[in-house]
């Protein structure tokens, strides 16, 4: 049982990362930290995709290899997902900049104070 769990350590790592990211996203009051959490969450999912594409003993998906290569499709998907993630981060950061200009803070508590 334990061995079986250990064998899937890659999934465990990404699950732990996901939870860290998710927790950061919902618990931190600092907006930048929220965004960091979001990035951790997204990256954990990318790891999940990439590690599931892996086939033992195969090389990266480049045609020159003789031994065959791992499933390339998740890599492509993740490439797209990274772009999405980067765009989200960009939008979020620009929002934070504007919020900072308006409220003079990026701490949720202080902003709510200013707000009310």
């Amino acid at each position, binding site marked *: 049982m334990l061995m079986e769990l250990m064998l899937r350590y890659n999934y465990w790592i990404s699950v732990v990362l996901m939870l860290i990211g998710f927790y950061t996203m919902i618990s931190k009051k600092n907006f930048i930290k929220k965004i960091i959490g979001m990035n951790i969450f997204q990256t954990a999912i990318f790891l999940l995709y990439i590690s599931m594409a892996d086939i033992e003993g195969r090389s990266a998906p480049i*045609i020159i290899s003789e031994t065959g290569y791992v499933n390339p499709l998740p890599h492509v998907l993740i*490439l797209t997902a990274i772009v999405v993630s980067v765009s989200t981060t960009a939008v979020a*950061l620009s929002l934070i900049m504007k919020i900072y200009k308006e409220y003079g803070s990026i701490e949720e508590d202080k902003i709510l104070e200013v707000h009310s």
Partner: protein
Amino acid sequence: MANGEITSIVIRTVSRIIIPFIQIFGLYTIIHGEASPGGGFQGGVILGTSIILLTIVFGLEEAKRRIPRGLILVFMSLGLLIYSGIGLLDMLFGGKYLEYTRLPLPLSGHEISALSILCVEIGIGITVMSVIILLFFYSVRDEDAHGINA
């Protein structure tokens, strides 16, 4: 530090040397899109970072002088137009969107495909580069500036 540029002579000189190499590496990555690791996204980002480095070191004014905002916008649209233009060209010759093999070129199917993918990657690269630069320009732009065209 009026424009936020860095005055250290070391950094300025090193950057001056390094930026062209970054750009060449970016082009290399774009061109290697169809058969090996690389592609428009990655290459575009690398090209974009070279301009970001330029902005950091030499200031926004200098960067804007070298690459005016209008030009970036034109590039951004141009890249996408290359991409969709090739798709439309394929459709013109009776294929599906981005079905390259129908293009009437004196080459084998594989070669046409590779050529078309290269063009598409270049288009994507240009767009990504311009978007990255624009994003950075926006982030450091003056307080009172408004609008893409400001």
